[in-house]
């Protein structure tokens, strides 16, 4: 759409673009920029798509980056063109009109326009330019009614409503004949927004200050299932980390197998006499995990998240036992193994697989005692215990000694607390009693923090045999 400025002015433009990308948090280095220039040498600049793909292949190194680039690219070149236009005093309503589709073009009445737009949106083949023209007609028709509010976002919504456009609902069984595909509608709205902006710039002769992208826009379009997917992705990462760590943890020399090939290879430096033995690298061991998850009311908001973590853990680890607790503890390993879908699992846990729950108040002390009772024989230095909970004991005895014993028997103990660190140890939270016994404690209520946890357990460093 916006024509690329001439070759002479391109390099500084690209640098400006790179600058904006950096402001949005993308890592665009000089080497990437050099690549981008190299790539642009190789593709034709007349195709907007090729131009964009070339930039995207060289500058954006992940899907998120690509999304950001797309948004910034649109905004940047739109603004660049408008700036030029404003500087040169070019206006679209004067003299030569680009495609003969001015605001005062054909006098369509609203009804006919409505039908035309709907048709264009329902058909898959409407070109970009065609949509833009329709967007302009819509703005013109809307403007005649004299309802412009001056705020672009509001105007876009009003225009949409006046035109009676609605997106296809995702769940409807019967297709609504009037509904249009959602992505097409969004595309159309984008055009309307852009045309409105263009008109505003023309009126005021100045560019509005550029705003950083909104979080909402940057995020990839996702459904609720995506959250679960994100948790699964992070947990898969965690599996790898725990696995490679365990290898170091066990010490090197116990029951190692001599690697003949490598021993012979080293023996070359001593004239073929194998003075130094080389051992086979160990296969990563399978970590044994015990996860305890608080599902009481004080962590209601976090427990969906915790359950999805648990769900993801079950997908990744085979030697995993999971427990949920409120006042008492119950093992839910089997539920997770039986049920695949997350909904079924949460239904089973809140329903029949049920937590032994009398008062509805968490009793951490009792939980430790019962947990130790159940698994004491299985806990060994190779196992990791992960506790998901807020450490709010409702004033009951925290039994920190039992917890210490438990942490001692297990190789590593991690605590993930769904409250900000600031709230720990206030009220009935007894985090301080447990913290010294844990290998690590973390705030955790988003996937980003979960990722932080995964990174942290990797950075804690392997415990080497001294």
């Amino acid at each position, binding site marked *: 759409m916006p024509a690329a400025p001439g070759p002479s002015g391109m390099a500084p433009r690209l640098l400006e673009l790179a600058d904006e990308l950096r402001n949005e948090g993308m890592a665009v280095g000089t080497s990437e920029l050099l690549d981008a220039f190299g*790539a642009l040498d190789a593709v034709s600049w007349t195709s907007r798509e090729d131009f964009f793909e*070339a930039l*995207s*292949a*060289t500058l*954006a190194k992940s899907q998120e980056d690509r999304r950001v680039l797309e948004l910034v690219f649109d905004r940047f070149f739109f603004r660049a063109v408008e700036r030029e236009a404003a500087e040169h005093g070019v206006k679209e309503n004067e003299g030569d009109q680009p495609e003969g589709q001015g605001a005062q073009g054909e006098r369509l009445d609203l009804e006919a326009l409505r039908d035309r737009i709907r048709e264009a949106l329902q058909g898959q083949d409407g070109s970009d330019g065609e949509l833009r023209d329709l967007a302009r007609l819509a703005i013109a028709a809307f403007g005649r009614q004299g309802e412009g509010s001056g705020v672009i976002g509001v105007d876009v919504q009003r225009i949409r409503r006046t035109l009676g456009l609605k997106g296809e609902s995702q769940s409807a069984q019967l297709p609504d004949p009037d509904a249009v595909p959602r992505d097409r509608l969004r595309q159309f709205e984008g055009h309307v927004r852009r045309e409105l902006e263009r008109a505003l710039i023309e009126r005021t002769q100045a560019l509005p200050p550029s705003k950083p992208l909104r979080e909402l826009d940057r995020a990839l379009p996702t459904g609720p299932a995506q959250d679960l997917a994100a948790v699964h992705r992070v947990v898969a990462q965690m599996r790898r980390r725990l696995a490679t760590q365990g290898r170091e943890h066990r010490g090197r020399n116990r029951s190692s197998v001599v690697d003949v090939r490598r021993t*012979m290879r080293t023996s070359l430096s001593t*004239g073929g006499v194998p003075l130094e033995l080389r051992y086979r690298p160990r296969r990563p061991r399978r970590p044994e995990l015990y996860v305890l998850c608080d599902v009481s009311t004080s962590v209601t908001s976090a427990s969906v998240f915790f359950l999805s973590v648990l769900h993801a853990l079950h997908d990744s680890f085979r030697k995993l036992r999971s427990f949920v607790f409120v006042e008492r503890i119950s093992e839910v390993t089997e539920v997770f193994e039986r049920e695949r879908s997350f909904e079924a699992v949460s239904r089973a846990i809140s329903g029949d697989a049920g937590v032994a729950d009398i008062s509805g108040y968490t009793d951490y002390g009792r939980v430790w005692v019962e947990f130790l009772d159940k698994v004491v024989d299985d806990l060994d230095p190779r196992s990791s215990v992960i506790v998901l909970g807020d450490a709010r004991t409702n004033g009951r005895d925290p039994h920190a000694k039992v917890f210490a014993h438990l942490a001692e028997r297990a190789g590593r103990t991690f605590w993930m607390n769904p409250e900000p660190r600031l709230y720990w140890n206030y009220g009935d939270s007894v985090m301080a009693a447990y913290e010294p016994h844990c290998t690590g404690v973390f705030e955790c209520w988003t996937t980003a923090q979960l990722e932080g946890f995964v990174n942290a357990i990797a950075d804690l460093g392997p415990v080497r045999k001294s």
Partner: protein
Amino acid sequence: MASDLQSLDETRDALGRAGYLAGESTALVSYLAAHLGKPVLVEGPAGVGKTELAKALARATDRKLIRLQCYEGLDEAKALYEWNYRKQLLRIQVEASDAGWNDVRDDIFGEEFLLPRPLLSAITEEQPVVLLIDEIDKTDQEFEAMLLEVLSDFQVSIPELGVVEAKTHPLVLLTSNNSRELTEALKRRCLYLWLDYPDVERELEIVRLHAPELSEDMARKLVEVVHMVRNLDLKKPPSIAESIDWARALLLLGAEDLDGDVLERTMSVIVKHRTDLDLVAERVGVKLTDGLIGSRRAG
């Protein structure tokens, strides 16, 4: 430079001739990779044709494909090079009696005693090759670091021998299933390509290309079912290769129409987990029996 990938259109055509229907960005990135001599990092869900792209590129450019399959614990002895210690030992024993130490030392660390592994052989081939480093995310970060020298300078440093420089520039593709974030250093050296499941129309083309005997109607119905299955929350969504397999299976069985029964009998071709099977039978099978799929578009 690859001779067959001179322009964007030629690249697309060449890939098409090799049996790979490339999307706009795939063709462009392949062309850039050949033109700029940079490795390409291909990411995307399993089964969207990442590995196939490398194979198709090899076919399209008439190059040999050298493949390095990554796995946990892969080290440089298996990826880069290794000294042929048996041969070295023999050499020492033969020479030990009458040759001076210096001769032997210079001798046993010569190229004769070097066993090239995929990475080294990729850059020392006389003819340019396509190098596929598959599932790079399965290795650890140390291995990635080792790759950097090969990927950016196309050379390998061997302490005893010096630097082995590339005779020809290979076309390098790295694939990743995104199971782990790759290091910035590696990403910086690569062009990035995200492959996703194709839309119905493109996948239809792909299926028609690989199973041309299947009728248009059947193929469309099949692709629509596969898309519907992908939208369910499955352990392993069906890949493109599996849609092709399914198409071939239907041909083999001589199925006339794709209905609930046929799905029931053949869905193990596209769905590989027991729990997934139940889910698909429940959600998709019913719709097929009721004739909800295919009719909307056909009517």
